[in-house]
């Protein structure tokens, strides 16, 4: 497949003339593609046909939880009543606030947290918000200066490091234990008076449950630090264990992972955070509270302020609400059951080394002698989306694989067959991949070396 750029189909320059404004307030001209509706329709239809989505086939990107996105949630979010202006007064938007409040409640119960804010517009924004809450808490306790460090395991998501740094913290990297989990001794020596928080994913990015979680919590709490839960892998635990019960003080939820809202090619997502009662006064403003059957926007006593210009990615939150209502307790529990069963089954069918275990929602296979990125490219030729590659680094040439609950046994068998077929192939075949995709292997290095980031930057022959 190949589709010319819009700008290659047409580029029309118009003079900007407008007698009602002085010339010096307006631009001189505007050069953009001028195409008819049928041409635009075909352009984007063809582009879509050059793109792989969940409805195209399995998408086992580890840690991304790419699962089926139910269509009815789209219909709900498309209702015109859902798209109100954020400046409407409370009394004119009671329906929206009720749903907003219900979702705060649902997420609190699911995570075992006392209070939830829906404002952060993505998982990383949730991390940033959570760390800001921790910081405000420590500052309120007169402990802000001293507690200058956030501890992050080396296998954690890159966002953990970046979010802590954005909030002004020094990041202390915590090496892992031989069993792929937190090294308690290393933790004990890392923790101290400077510790503001430990950020942890559980199950971690290897799919392993941190069995010592209570001990970990004690170590951090005893030192006066807070425990932050990265919700990226919550799909493994729904109804089996709750971060709040494990001792976490703050957590974020990736609704586009756990609660099946579409990833949208990279967003919008939403990253609500839950906190313990103690931290509730520090949540962003406003919170939605129910009083005598009406819903109010309330500023928490020591609120950190705002992390988004309005109420977050509301349309995504609305889809989350509908999804949770659809599943209910039993559906949520079953989600994790099938996600964990699928990961374990798929691991059992793949002829590659898969260190560590037992696995929950995902596992990391090793491509061994092969380059994991090339291995993945070759999998494209088998019509499936490959796993996340080369991460976490504790597994050499990592293939981080998360099938989710939404794949059938038949599909898992197809996925395993793709893994195994590539594992059996010679280097040359693998290196020549992909052969069947809409584009062949793309040179990313030269793209970065001389960046061309708009059609203006393309020469005519490029």
């Amino acid at each position: 497949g190949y589709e010319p750029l819009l700008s290659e189909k047409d580029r029309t320059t118009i003079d900007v003339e407008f007698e009602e404004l002085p010339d010096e307030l307006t631009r001189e001209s505007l050069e953009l593609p001028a195409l008819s509706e049928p041409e635009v329709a075909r352009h984007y239809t063809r582009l879509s046909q050059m793109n792989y989505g969940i409805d195209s086939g399995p998408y086992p990107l580890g840690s991304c939880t790419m699962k089926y996105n139910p269509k009815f949630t789209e219909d709900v979010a498309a209702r015109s009543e859902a798209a109100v202006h954020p400046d409407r007064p409370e009394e004119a938007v009671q329906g929206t606030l009720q749903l907003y409040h219900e979702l705060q409640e649902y997420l609190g119960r699911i995570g075992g947290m006392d209070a939830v804010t829906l404002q952060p517009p993505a998982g990383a924004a949730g991390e940033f918000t959570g760390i800001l809450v921790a910081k405000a808490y420590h500052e309120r306790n007169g402990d802000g200066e001293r507690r200058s460090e956030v501890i992050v395991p080396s296998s954690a998501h890159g966002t953990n490091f970046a979010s802590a740094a954005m909030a002004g913290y020094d990041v202390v990297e915590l090496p892992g234990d031989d069993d792929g989990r937190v090294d308690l001794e290393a933790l004990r020596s890392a923790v101290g008076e400077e510790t503001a928080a430990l950020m942890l994913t559980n199950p971690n990015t290897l799919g392993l449950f941190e069995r010592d979680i209570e001990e970990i919590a004690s170590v951090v709490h005893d030192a006066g630090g807070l425990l932050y839960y990265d919700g990226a892998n919550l799909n493994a635990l729904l109804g089996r264990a709750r971060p709040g019960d494990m001792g976490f003080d703050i957590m974020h939820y990736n609704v586009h992972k756990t609660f099946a809202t579409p990833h949208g090619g990279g967003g919008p997502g939403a990253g609500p955070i839950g906190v313990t009662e103690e931290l509730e006064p520090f949540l962003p403003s406003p919170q939605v509270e129910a009083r005598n059957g009406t819903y109010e926007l309330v500023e928490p006593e020591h609120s950190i302020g705002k992390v988004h210009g309005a109420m977050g990615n509301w349309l995504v939150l609305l889809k989350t609400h509908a999804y949770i209502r659809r599943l209910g307790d039993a559906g949520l529990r079953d989600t994790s059951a099938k996600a964990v069963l699928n990961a374990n089954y798929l691991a059992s069918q793949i002829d590659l080394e898969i260190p560590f275990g037992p696995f929950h929602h995902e596992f990391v296979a090793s491509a061994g002698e092969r380059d994991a990125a090339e291995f993945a490219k070759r999998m494209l030729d088998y019509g499936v989306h490959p796993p996340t590659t080369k991460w976490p680094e504790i597994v050499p040439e990592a293939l981080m694989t998360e099938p989710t609950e939404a794949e059938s046994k038949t599909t898992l068998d197809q996925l395993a067959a793709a893994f195994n077929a590539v594992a059996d192939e010679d280097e040359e075949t693998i290196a020549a991949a992909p052969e069947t995709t809409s584009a062949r292997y793309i040179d990313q290095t030269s793209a970065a070396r001389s960046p061309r980031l708009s059609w203006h930057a393309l020469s005519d022959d490029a």
Partner: protein
Amino acid sequence: MSYHTQLSRTEETETESTGSPFAPHTEADVEAMLRAVDAESVEELFDVPNSVRFDGEFGIEAASEREVVRSVVETLGRNESATEFLGRGHYDHYVPSLVDHLADRSEFLTSYTQYQPEITQGFLQALFEYQSLLVELTGLEVANCSMYDAATALGEVATLSRRARSVTGDRVLVPDALRDERRAVLENYVGGTALAVEEYPTAAGVVDPDDLEDALDDDVALVYVENPTTTGLIQDRLEAVGELLAADDVLFCLGSDPIALSLLRTPASIGADAVIGDASVLGLGTAYGTSLGLFACKEEYLRQVPGRLVGASRDESGRRAYTLTLQTREQHIRRERATSNICTNQAWVALRTAIHAAVLGPDGLLDLAKECHRLPEVLARELDAIEGVSAPVRDGYHFREFRATVEPDATELVSELYAEGFAVHAIDADTIQVCVTDANENRAAELVTAITEVLD
């Protein structure tokens, strides 16, 4: 009888759900899979110590698709039904049906970030075209492929100013008329740095270069100016501002949006270093928060840009192809030294914005922008003719909205207008703000009548 078909039954008969309707496993599948992993039950696979096992209930009742849709729609129905004449930084424009139909194609909607460019050329190209649109509109060389919203984009510009070697200083100057929400987000973004946010005086958002000059000193890192202002005015002395700031090692950031930029002076031509704003005025409109942060800047700041960038490259067959690029700026590579923590962004909204712009074309965009000037001018004149209303409050060129003083009481007027099915901003005791675009102009005459009657 298979396991999951029991579930599809609940769809129609509403017997109690026994699992996820989106897990495709039959009982036989589950048995075979358990055998393969040598387990007796699924519970056995959970390596969770008993002490932290959860055996309670969430107390959330499962419901059929029909019930959920009905219930959510009924609840949304509790929102007062009103034609909104609200703006102040969040704007509605008619979104052509084609935008929905194309953006909802599941290959777009259900895909993830384009880590495998060979099978995501479609989305990558759409994002490349979105970047190109912003480059054309701003006149700057670089645009990223999305931020969350205008407020967080402003926050990111501030931290960029901290990293940029050509910029020094700790003061961030923003207009006194800045929306509280944007200011609050900005404060949080700079909270981890030495930057401090301060206001400079404006006339309802309109910057006076002399006043700004008074606020400037060597310690200023960033000056932020909005055009049009949150009050609906087009800035008329931006060139002087640009000249003023060009002399210093100050980052000059302009706040705007793609419709305004189709008509107004290009940021590049008045010397802006960066542009942020809300790009979802095309493609989405107000949605209680769901939005799209616009981010563009000069090429010199390229390595400091936050967020995703799509670049052109070639594939092995020599054909043009697109890929995420300069990823070494990003959190998954650079971790705590990344330019931002952003990962999941607003790609799908950017797709919608790009499609909307493509449907309009240059003439359509420009005409829409012209209407954004004409409509408030006309409406202000009509309101001004009402006894007890003076509009617009300030002379100047309007874009989408304007303020009006009303007697005797703005809050009461706004509340009575709600009862009549119209939403307008109450700014203070005697000021309202009214926003009119192609999305609500069909009811503008009725608004005039309603205001006349309420004040009568």
